[in-house]
């Protein structure tokens, strides 16, 4: 069943003409003829859960916003930087008007007149396409004052980021949008009460907002019938890593994960097996080849000890070691930690150093216990979940692959004792910047 990806490859879908020919902006007309509360009710009825990672119900989040006439904002989070996730990119590139339409409907439902799209700076092509789409929509009277003759007005601004993973976190994103360093804020107050420029702010992911027109046109209750009872609708899944056909697939929530990894994406190359996989971006605890039959929805994933996250599956086959993936992962989070909270700033850095000790043959099995305790001390002790995002997968790797890591420690110690470690390159966290640091 295709909802978001229906006809996504039609040439020229990024233009208003083709989008309208396919029935685009009909949902907006329908919504504007309804009462705002009815529109919000339909979104609540659909029980759609946020597609950005947290999985919070959109209708509930929108209902937290105070009523009345005040400076309220909607921010669309298009800073898709979770490793393994690339669904919003395809959506924005091929069907930008779907997002614009969703934003107009959502702002109408909540009574917002100023909206921003925060897109990551690396998505230059997608930002250009969106900008063109916004201009086209404004010319056609679909944005601006008194949209389509109704009482609703909206100005929509596209804001380009400049490369920082932390700006995908909602409060870090708000600080970045205010022109500051993207440091997360203390919650509460939550953005729905005090967000951008201290006004109540609704923050939603691209995919969530792009689904809104479809919810309005098919009806909230009808949308809720798709998928499972607690995870309604369809989901774009980005699958990558060791599979034969990596890419974006639209699936109905609740189908077995095996179907996505093997039937759709072709599974690992012949003769190899799935060693472990991240079900929801690199921040989710890993699952092994034994968990392939877990249904792909929010609750089943939580029950299996992981999470659906942003819906990005990264498959690792048996030709790779756990250590190499863990080190890549830890280095990424150490680099991207903004440094505001000590457990995250220090915890990510020390995890990298401990993993490097394993590589260089200096570690003992006790280091794994220390590493596991560091992960425990990060989780829940920071303003945002960046530290947790490293601690959860690394913690799960230590639990699930302890034997392999111990063997790795032993092998590296033996190699070090025999003086055979020349091939191990010490990879520092600051390596990628090594070229930019001037030599004095």
């Amino acid at each position, binding site marked *: 069943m295709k909802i978001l990806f229906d006809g996504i490859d039609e040439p020229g879908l990024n233009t208003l003409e083709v989008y309208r020919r396919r029935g685009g902006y009909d949902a907006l007309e329908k919504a504007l003829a309804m009462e705002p509360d009815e529109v919000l009710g339909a979104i609540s009825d659909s029980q759609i859960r946020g597609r950005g990672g947290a999985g919070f119900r959109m209708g509930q989040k929108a209902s937290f916003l105070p009523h009345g006439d005040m400076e309220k904002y909607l921010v669309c989070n298009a800073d898709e930087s979770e490793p393994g996730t690339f669904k919003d990119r395809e959506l924005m590139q091929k069907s930008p008007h779907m997002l614009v339409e969703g934003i107009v409907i959502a702002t109408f439902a909540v009574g917002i007149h100023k909206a921003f799209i925060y897109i990551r700076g690396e*998505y230059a092509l997608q930002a250009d396409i969106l900008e063109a789409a916004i201009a086209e929509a404004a010319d056609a009277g679909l944005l601006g004052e008194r949209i389509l003759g109704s009482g609703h007005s909206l100005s929509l601004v596209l804001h380009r980021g*400049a490369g920082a993973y932390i700006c995908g976190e909602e409060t870090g994103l708000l600080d970045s949008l205010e*022109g500051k360093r993207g440091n997360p804020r203390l919650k509460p107050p939550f953005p729905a009460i005090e967000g951008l420029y201290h006004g109540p702010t609704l923050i939603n992911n691209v995919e969530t907002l792009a689904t809104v027109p479809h919810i309005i046109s098919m009806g909230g209750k009808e949308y809720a019938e798709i998928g499972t009872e607690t995870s309604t609708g369809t989901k774009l899944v980005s699958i990558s890593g060791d599979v034969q056909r990596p890419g974006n697939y639209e699936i109905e929530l609740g189908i077995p994960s095996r179907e996505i990894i093997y039937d759709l994406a072709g599974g690992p190359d012949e003769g190899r097996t799935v060693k472990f996989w991240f079900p929801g971006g690199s921040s989710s605890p890993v699952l092994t080849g034994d968990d392939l039959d877990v249904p792909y929805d929010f609750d089943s994933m939580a029950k299996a000890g992981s999470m659906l996250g942003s819906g990005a599956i990264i498959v690792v086959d048996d030709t790779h070691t756990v250590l190499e993936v863990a080190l890549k992962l830890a280095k990424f989070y150490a680099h991207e930690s903004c440094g505001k909270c000590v457990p995250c700033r220090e915890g990510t850095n020390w995890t990298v150093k401990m993993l490097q000790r394993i590589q260089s043959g200096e570690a003992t099995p006790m280091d794994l216990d220390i590493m596991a305790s560091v992960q425990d001390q990060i989780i829940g002790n920071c303003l945002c979940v960046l530290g947790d995002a490293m601690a959860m997968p690394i913690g799960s790797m230590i639990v699930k692959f302890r034997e392999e890591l111990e063997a790795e420690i032993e092998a590296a110690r033996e190699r070090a004792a025999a003086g055979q470690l020349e091939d191990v390159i010490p990879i520092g966290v600051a390596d990628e910047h090594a070229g930019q640091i001037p030599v004095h």
Partner: protein
Amino acid sequence: MSPAPRAVARFGHGSRVPGWDEAVDLTKPPAVVPDLATTEVPDELRATIEAAMAKYPDRRSAAIPALHAAQEVHGWCSPEAIEQVAAVMSLTPAYLTSVATFYDMLETHPKPRNDVYVCTNISCSLLGADEFFEAMHEAALEDVDVNVRAFECLGACDIAPMASVNGEYVGPLEPADAARIVEDLRAGRPVLESKQLRYRRCVDPGVAEGAAEFSPPAADVPRTDTAGLGPEGDTVDRAGPSAPYEVPTEEEPPAPGDTSHEHAPDAEPESKDAPDQPPREAK
């Protein structure tokens, strides 16, 4: 694997750019907001920054777009560039420096003109991004105009291993492509056109089911803005099963209603066998 250190960064007048490990000179008063009347700002840059400021309720929101624009003009966020932005935005240089040093795409040290960001995150490195990064680094050594950086997930794991060349996503890459990228950059032509992300189709086989009803592209559809179209005159079929029509071999786009562009319903949903992508080799 670490890139070779570059030469000492210097300002145009010869003095060294202050490094990360140099203490601030506390005997000097902090820099104040520069006076716009006495600071020389290129007219175009000033207009861009002022237009950006007008878009937001708070002018500070324009800090990132303004620094971006200044970086375009000066090549990097140099002290002069930051001073010019500070003057137009009525902010202190210290505030803007704090912003510029936070973001990976704003560079506070002189850099070569062309940016090649090689993604070295999990999905890409599983498929050989580290080898490609090394090859890219080697290839760029001869060319002072290429800034090769290992970058965190660029959001294109479907074409892993990939790189962003001046904002253009290309992939899947092999070490041999590194030399082509440098060559294309030097010649000023589109980089690795057959591997650009913008032309790729969706891999979801379900998309193909509805593809039969696609109309052929109108003559005025900008070819580069839609997936699956390919550059003018290009005959390469790109990955993805939803080929709705054949890419025309003639120069002119097909006339509407042309039946030769019908979708083949039983097209093989196989992305690997496209001519430009040899099957992945077993490691």
